[in-house]
């Protein structure tokens, strides 16, 4: 039976439950110094003076470093950075290079000391004087000065601008409302941390909490002006990321500190710094208008987003799903992007779709209610099997099944269209649903497979396991591709010196590295077969390569399985200590394109080409169902149960896959009910500073979650057939919950999160 898909327990589980798994801050080094940054306390202006006399005299202090004395870094140069694979810096601000302050919390100096306690105390004693400038801190106030960016990540940003208005004006049935979502923070449980170790002047090892060892290495090499091959980034375990663990400034700061004091150095960010220095999801104000004909078919959809950014090209693309879902003949998607003196926004779990589905799927619910159609029925009427913008078929799409199965599992038929019909004791009970969607991505990746004389197989690639199960599913794939047991396979990832892989983001790891792993196994089997065929002592001697198949650690002739030879025997007779194969695959349809193994060296993933994006549209879909109980006296809302049905292609490991969806749903519950960072409207500083203020769901907030997978292979994304599952779980969740709140109470809440005071405002 195939290992792939089996719900086996994580192979790294025992290390994690026993405290043996080491995360970046835990790679303590002999003679290591500790770094503690100093952060700006104004939103905009210039540093006039830094007084470090007191701080320098603190016991144990080795150095106080600011723009005045910091090592000069290579300046920003987008073209050069692109070439070096170093364009993807979290914020476009090489650290400690000038006296300009762009946002509150910006790293402006650091103390390096013998111990953590000493560094922290001394950092408090660094005194900074500023010349303040008028800062932009309020989104609403800055929207009139905002830009309409042309492009977003290589795609047209403003779609059909202005075209919806006449159609909307002419429509009889329409809804048109504003929905807003707050600033959200990723807050992975492991704070970002880096240990930097120099070996001489030009070799650097970074133990870094990153979602992409290759990316971090390339960026660090660029700014520190090192040869890329001389920077090694190691991250065997990463304590969650959710989009926040790209390269942020602290990684460079630690490397600079270590160089300055000539010792290894460590910096683990405080939770307070996680609020200001490693990105967040920007707030959005979205306006969604929908119109239908009398049969409930959408005629036009308009989705406009007001948002902001700072020190990045990125902005929250909350109109994304409105280009994918439903069969409206016309859709307009536009953005205004203001610039605020606020820390840099970045990718956060389902960037775009997470806040975007809140708006669109709430609006769908409003429209369905207006027409007194069941919300599922309304979606079915408007279902599309093609990407509405390009007209391509979806590579594999079972959204209608998601609705149907979800409705059955959840017991949707017990819902009434009219609100306020169900009570449980003193609580109002409501049901709500929403569609989930997220693109299926795939990138180039390289994987190396080595078999030793004992039959043990090591598979390596510079991928990362941020909790997604990469270790485990990779072992499962290789077990099948070689016909050997999972426990004879060792997985090495999280090291930039291994063959290149994309960063763990965009739900693409599985879709990208598994085809390469399979290809590497094919190559390895071919080499084994060649050895056997050429070996007169083998029962396979002289056979034709095409005739040879494999199973259970053996090669055999398809027509006669008595003619066989085991990997072990082939290897031992050949007197080799090991056999190695490496493959790089590019994201093309079918088998994928395997490129010559010369390209299969660390750090060199060839540029993507030839993708069959031209033929198919790759998207995952799902349906989310929530039951909420509302205490109307207090405006408190609890999600009492949740059903999530997902069409994400093949399931590689049902146990870890289910966990990822559950995790997405829970983060969605957080977004719906409690997560928000508030900023002071006068000075722009975050008033939500810590995990005591930034509420994420706790155990008691989380109900039983029923997850069901459609489980049908996607025949076009790769021979593996799996699309990603890391992000889709969060999409649609907040809408399903808000829609359930409407069903319970008749109150339509359009401003996340749905904390008690929101209830008192409507």
């Amino acid at each position, binding site marked *: 039976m195939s290992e792939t898909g089996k719900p086996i327990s994580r192979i790294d589980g025992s290390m994690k439950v026993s405290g043996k798994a080491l995360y970046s801050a835990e790679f303590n080094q002999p003679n290591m110094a500790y770094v503690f940054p100093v952060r700006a*306390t104004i939103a905009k202006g210039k540093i006039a003076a830094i007084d470090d006399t007191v701080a320098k005299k603190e*016991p144990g202090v080795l150095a106080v470093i600011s723009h005045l004395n910091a090592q000069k870094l290579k300046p920003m140069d987008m073209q050069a950075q692109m070439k070096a694979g170093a364009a993807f810096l979290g914020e476009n601000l090489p650290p400690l290079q000038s006296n300009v302050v762009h946002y509150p919390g910006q790293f402006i100096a650091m103390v390096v000391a013998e111990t953590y*306690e000493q560094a*922290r*105390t001394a950092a*408090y004693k660094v005194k900074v004087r500023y010349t303040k400038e008028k800062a932009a801190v309020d989104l609403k106030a800055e929207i009139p000065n905002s830009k309409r960016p042309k492009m977003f990540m290589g795609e047209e940003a403003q779609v059909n601008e202005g075209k919806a208005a006449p159609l909307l004006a002419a429509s009889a049935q329409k809804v048109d409302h504003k929905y807003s979502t707050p600033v959200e923070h990723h807050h992975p449980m492991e704070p970002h941390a880096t240990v930097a170790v120099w070996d001489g002047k030009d070799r650097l090892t970074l133990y870094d909490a990153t979602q992409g060892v290759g990316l971090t290495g390339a960026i660090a090499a660029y700014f520190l002006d090192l040869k890329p091959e001389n920077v090694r980034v190691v991250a065997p375990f990463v304590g969650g990321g959710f989009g926040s663990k790209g390269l942020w400034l602290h990684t460079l700061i630690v490397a600079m500190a270590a160089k300055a004091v000539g010792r290894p150095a460590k910096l683990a960010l405080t939770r307070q710094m996680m609020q200001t220095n490693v990105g967040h999801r920007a707030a959005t104000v979205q306006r969604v208008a929908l119109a239908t004909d009398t049969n409930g078919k959408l005629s036009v959809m308009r989705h406009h987003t007001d948002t902001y950014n700072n020190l990045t090209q990125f902005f929250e693309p909350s109109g994304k799903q409105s280009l994918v879902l439903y069969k409206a003949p016309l859709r307009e998607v536009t953005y205004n992007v203001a610039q605020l003196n606020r820390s840099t926004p970045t990718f956060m779990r389902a960037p775009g779709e997470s806040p975007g589905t809140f708006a669109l799927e709430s609006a769908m619910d409003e429209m369905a209610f207006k027409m007194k159609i069941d919300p599922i029925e309304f979606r079915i009427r408007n279902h599309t099997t093609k990407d509405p913008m390009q007209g391509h078929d979806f590579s594999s799409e079972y959204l209608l099944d998601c609705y149907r199965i979800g409705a059955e599992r959840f017991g949707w038929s017990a819902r009434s269209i009219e609100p306020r019909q169900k009570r*449980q*004791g003193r*609580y109002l*009970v409501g049901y709500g649903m929403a569609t989930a969607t997220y693109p299926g991505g795939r990138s180039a990746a390289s994987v190396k497979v080595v078999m030793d004389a004992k039959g043990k197989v090591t598979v390596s690639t510079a991928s990362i396991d941020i909790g997604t199960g990469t270790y485990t599913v990779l072992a499962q794939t290789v077990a099948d591709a070689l016909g050997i047991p999972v426990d004879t396979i060792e997985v090495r990832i999280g090291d930039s010196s291994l063959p290149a892989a994309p960063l763990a983001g965009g739900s693409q790891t599985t879709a990208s590295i598994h085809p390469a792993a399979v290809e590497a196994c094919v190559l390895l089997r071919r080499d084994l077969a060649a050895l056997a065929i050429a070996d007169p002592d083998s029962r396979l001697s002289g056979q034709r390569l095409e005739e040879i198949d494999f199973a259970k650690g053996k090669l055999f002739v398809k027509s006669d399985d008595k003619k066989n030879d085991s990997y072990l025997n082939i290897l031992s007779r050949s007197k080799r200590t090991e056999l190695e194969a490496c493959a790089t695959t590019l994201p093309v349809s079918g088998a994928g394109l395997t490129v010559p193994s010369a390209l299969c060296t660390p750090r060199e993933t060839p540029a993507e080409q030839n993708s069959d994006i031209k033929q198919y549209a790759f998207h995952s879909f799902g349906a989310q169902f929530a*039951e909420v*109980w509302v*205490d109307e*006296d*207090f*405006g*408190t809302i*609890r999600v*009492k*149960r949740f059903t999530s049905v997902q069409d994400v292609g093949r399931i590689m490991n049902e146990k870890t896959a289910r966990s990822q969806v559950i995790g997405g749903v829970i983060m969605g519950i957080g977004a719906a*009910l*409690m997560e928000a960072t*508030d*900023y*002071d*409207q*006068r000075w722009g*500083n975050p*008033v*939500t*500073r*810590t995990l*005591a*203020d930034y*509420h994420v*769901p*706790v*155990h*008691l*907030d989380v*109900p*039983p979650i029923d997850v069901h997978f459609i489980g049908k292979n996607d025949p076009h994304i790769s021979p593996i057939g799996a699309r990603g599952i890391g992000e889709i779980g969060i999409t649609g969740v907040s809408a399903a919950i808000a829609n359930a709140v409407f069903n319970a109470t008749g109150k339509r809440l359009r401003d996340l999160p749905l*904390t*008690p*005071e929101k*209830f*008192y*405002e409507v």
Partner: protein
Amino acid sequence: MRAFKYTNAPDSASAIRTVSANPAAKFLGGGTNLVDLMKEDVMHPTELMDVTRLSYTKIEKKNDGVSIGATATNSTTANHELIRKNYPLLSMAILAGASAQIRNMATNGGNLNQRTRCSYFYDVNMACNKREPGSGCAALNGVNKNHAILGWSEKCVATYPSDMAVALAALDAVVQVEGPNNSSRSIPFAEFHRLPADHPEKDNNLKQGELITAIDLPANQLAEKSYYLKIRERSSYAFALVSVAAALVTEGGRISEVRIALGGVAHKPWRATVAEKWLTGKEATTANFKAAAAAEMKNAKPLQHNKYKVGLALNAITRALEGAMQGGAYGTMEAESTSKN
């Protein structure tokens, strides 16, 4: 965290002597508040006297009531037979606070002395009269949705965060204190914490060097009908938006005695004396509870972002009294089992 000298106090007399002699010295209980604030650089004592090994851990009968030691932990207190049986309101309030781990560390004395969670107080770059007298109050015109609606002053609009203290206020507890030179005094709970007025830097009326040794709970008839209700933004491990400790005694359907205290609305646990007066002698009906709550909330003065607290408190008082009528065995939304489990 600034450098400080740590001493494991050998006895209370020397602990009191040291702390009263040095204005920058502090007692250390479980450290769950003080260590947090020291890491934030909000507080920087030069000397810590660890009092957790002093012998004030007993929870015992005293006169007709019970005395709880100041260095007993919150969890020991909440789970003690004498408290669960006779003062369930206190158990409920303690258990509504923080997390199991924190309650295992937190001492009763430390709990009463915990400081506000006002975010501007915690951010040393912000003006705050409580942290730095005379610097101003950043919250007054800032983000103040978690702040006070009752009893605040222009100098400070912070709320006092303890759940335990809200129950103690309702229970008319008495704080026992030892001071320098073998002095000692008893502070009625209502006089322990302060309203901010012109001196928000003072949370309570303890003097430097005064050590809380015990909290006395007088006997009462309230155990049968008491309830602690806490409303927060997530279902656990969060401070109250509004909380209510309610307890009453009824005779023939009429209220002969009632205690109501509110948390999350003022600079101290707020005894709802207006509502109490209104209710005494009346029938224990929801309509009366609501009217009494409304009478209390007439005095509320919300800030820019916390108008919701007025309605919330009104409904919470009503619900808490209903809960008390049902003997405390009144489900929270969390406690009620999930519909499909």
